[in-house]
């Protein structure tokens, strides 16, 4: 029963409660006002004054380039740039309170730092004291750039353990090519700011380049990160590009062609290896070879790949292409013969010479290839119309860029047959009056080796993105250029060149049947004529002939010891042997067919 006493007590309680509730209500109201109603304004204000949120860029790493076996040929690493703060050094030295000084005095610390970084300690002390004299409040003195992770860790230990707070280190991403010059011209290189300039680095930049991420977080007083306030957009690393190149084979061929070029006194050389059945480029070896770690070590002329960016009139190496064109049209067979002096003047006024003096022979088509007789080829070649020959040359890849899409790749040139003069009519049968790159020659021989079916050349095996998706390029386009029978006939003629030709002993690869063709091309002297006495020599070969698997093209630019394509013989033999060994190609079990007659 509520007495007056209890009523009064209750009233007091109720009043007290009401006051408390009112105060609480005021707080709640204010909180709602701040956190809900005016929330955006306050956040914006905080962000504007710069103290609230902070954004950090998370750098993504550029993708690696590997060879066909997964050996890393190019990768991105972090190096560190170290700097000192002269002002802090000065302040620490002038500091009298032992507790506020670092554990090592500058004298000893400078020795340790110079030791880690690899510079002269007196030099370092000089520089620091000079800078302190110039500007006692200077906060920046560059110490060293490009420090490795090991050096970074040692300096960091000095900084944290011994209190050397005046060392600062910034990470920087650089591109490293662990295998140096091996396949250097295929890899390409970047400029100082990380932009690709050449090679696969440029060609496949879409796969290799990374996307930077972002981390935004809110900061409280003192710059402390407020937990739970982070928002991270992760960085996407670049993908890994796998090349079709075999880096060990590439190293061997680079070493070998460098030695051969030196032996023969040549300016430059190259070896290209193409897998016949797939069109994949298995090796791109060049001399002088570009080392992407040190681009300036090579002369300006040679930082571009010779295989894709050097054109020349191929010479006799294209005689088998003429043979294939003529035989495919049914105009001749390997046994068809013509009368060939060593020097012939044709009715339209053109003059053609053979590479060596000989009495008038009746060369068969096979014999014409074996002795590389220009006069015979001129007669065989003109058994079909120039338009047909032009079409075949175009189908074999002349004046068409290869499907590789290599940067700075040259197209080569061949003029419309209607504009061919009397000399061009004949010289186009033996590889002159049009220009090709070594890659195009390799492509033409791939066609002959693959039963007449041309496959696109390719350099890229796959691109694996950072989340593991493997993207393979489209399968190579194929085009039938000549019939399989024609191809087999021309292969047999090439084998006869290898066995009956003048270089037979030098190029023999024990255990295997191979087919080759040499070429000695004249190089322009820049004044409208050709250089005298020096040539661009090349040799193309296919092995094994009974089931061709590899095409090898060796070039030597202006050899001086042996001045014709004989200079490439030893290099070719070593290259072909190594290629067949690398891929464990089964030795030839079927003996060679009957030798084709050279003369009639």
């Amino acid at each position, binding site marked *: 029963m509520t007495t007056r006493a209890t009523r009064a007590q209750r009233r007091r309680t109720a009043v007290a409660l009401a006051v408390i509730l009112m105060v609480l209500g005021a707080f709640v109201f204010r909180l709602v006002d701040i956190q809900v109603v005016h929330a955006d304004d306050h956040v914006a204000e905080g962000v504007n004054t710069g103290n609230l949120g902070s954004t950090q860029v998370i750098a993504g790493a550029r993708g690696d380039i590997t060879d066909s076996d997964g050996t890393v040929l190019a990768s991105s690493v972090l190096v560190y740039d170290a700097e000192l703060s002269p002002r802090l050094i000065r302040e620490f030295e002038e500091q009298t309170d032992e507790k506020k000084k670092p554990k090592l005095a500058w004298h000893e610390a400078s020795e340790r730092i110079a030791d880690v970084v690899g510079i002269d300690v007196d030099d370092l002390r000089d520089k620091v004291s000079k800078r302190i004299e110039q500007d006692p409040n200077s906060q920046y003195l560059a110490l060293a750039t490009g420090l490795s992770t090991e050096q970074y860790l040692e300096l960091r230990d000095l900084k944290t353990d011994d209190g050397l707070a005046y060392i600062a280190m910034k990470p920087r991403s650089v591109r490293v090519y662990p295998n140096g010059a091996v396949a250097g011209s295929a890899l390409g290189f970047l400029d100082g700011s990380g932009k690709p300039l050449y090679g696969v680095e440029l060609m496949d930049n879409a796969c290799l380049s990374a996307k930077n991420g972002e981390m935004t977080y809110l900061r409280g007083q003192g710059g402390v990160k407020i937990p739970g306030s982070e928002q991270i957009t992760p960085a996407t690393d670049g993908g890994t590009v796998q090349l079709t190149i075999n880096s060990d084979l590439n190293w061997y061929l680079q070493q070998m062609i460098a030695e051969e070029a030196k032996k023969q006194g040549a300016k430059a050389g190259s070896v290209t290896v193409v897998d016949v059945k797939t069109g994949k480029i298995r090796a791109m070896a060049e001399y002088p070879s570009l080392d992407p770690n*040190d681009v300036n070590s090579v002369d300006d002329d040679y930082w571009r790949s010779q295989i894709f960016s050097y054109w020349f009139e191929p010479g006799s190496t294209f005689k088998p292409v003429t043979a294939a064109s003529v035989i495919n049209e049914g105009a001749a067979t390997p046994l068809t013969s013509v009368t060939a002096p060593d020097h012939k003047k044709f009715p339209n006024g053109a003059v053609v010479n053979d590479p060596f003096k000989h009495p008038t022979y009746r060369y068969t088509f096979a014999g014409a290839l074996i002795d590389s007789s220009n006069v015979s080829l001129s007669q065989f070649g003109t058994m079909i119309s120039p338009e047909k020959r032009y079409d075949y040359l175009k189908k074999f890849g002349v004046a068409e860029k290869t499907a590789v899409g290599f940067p700075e790749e040259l197209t080569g040139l061949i003029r419309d047959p209607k504009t061919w003069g009397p000399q061009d009519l004949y010289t186009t049968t033996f590889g002159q009056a049009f220009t090709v790159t070594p890659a195009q020659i390799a492509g033409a021989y791939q066609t002959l080796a693959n039963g007449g079916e041309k496959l696109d050349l390719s350099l890229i095996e796959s691109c694996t993105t950072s989340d593991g998706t493997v993207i393979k390029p489209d399968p190579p386009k194929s085009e039938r250029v000549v019939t399989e029978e024609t191809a087999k006939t021309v292969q047999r003629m090439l084998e006869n060149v290898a066995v009956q030709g003048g270089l037979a002993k030098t190029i023999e690869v024990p255990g295997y049947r191979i087919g080759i063709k040499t070429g000695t091309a004249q190089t322009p002297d820049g004044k409208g004529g050709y250089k005298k006495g020096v040539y661009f020599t090349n040799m193309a070969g296919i092995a094994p002939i009974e089931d061709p698997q590899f095409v090898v093209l060796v070039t030597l630019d202006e050899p001086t010891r042996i001045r014709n394509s004989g200079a490439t013989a030893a290099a070719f033999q070593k290259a072909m042997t190594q290629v067949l060994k690398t891929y*464990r190609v089964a030795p030839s079990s079927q003996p060679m067919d009957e030798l084709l007659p050279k003369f009639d």
Partner: protein
Amino acid sequence: MSVQTARVQPQPQPQRTEPRRQLTPVTAPAAKRRPRLAYAALAIGAAQMGISLATTQDAFVLADLNIQQHELGLQKQALHENLVGISSPQSLAVKADAMGLVVAGSASYLRLSDGKVLGTSEGGNWASTVDPNGATKVGNALLAPPPPTAAEKKAAEDAAAKRDEAAAGAVEPAGPPVITDGLPTPTTR
């Protein structure tokens, strides 16, 4: 009788029948009503605090592990950098050549089914088809020795200067006298 006396005399109270009270002994105390709501609220509050504690504790553990991972990553990078360059084909070939290994010519193959040897019948000889230690090494800037520091350069210069001094100051040993007039003949009487 006066009204006052009437008032003094107690009025007969009306008889109120009271219900008969049942007296029963108390066997057990009446169960207190549990404040279930309070308990529930307390339990929820405690659970929340516990979870929050666990989460924040894990956050510290996570931060710790992250730091460890970062450290190990740096160490792995440092070790990896030691290997870069050394595993390149050039470096391996140079070392192999120094040990006497050669790259020979064509290989022979042994067919296991019948033991027949295919390919070239000549065995490998000791002539290498390449010379990795020769003048034309395939380059690798990562293998090049670091440029000499200023101290090393100075030491090299000093050493060279000393050698020149020694060479200049060395007294040539007296050679035999130069013969211009034929061999000396003893004069005899």
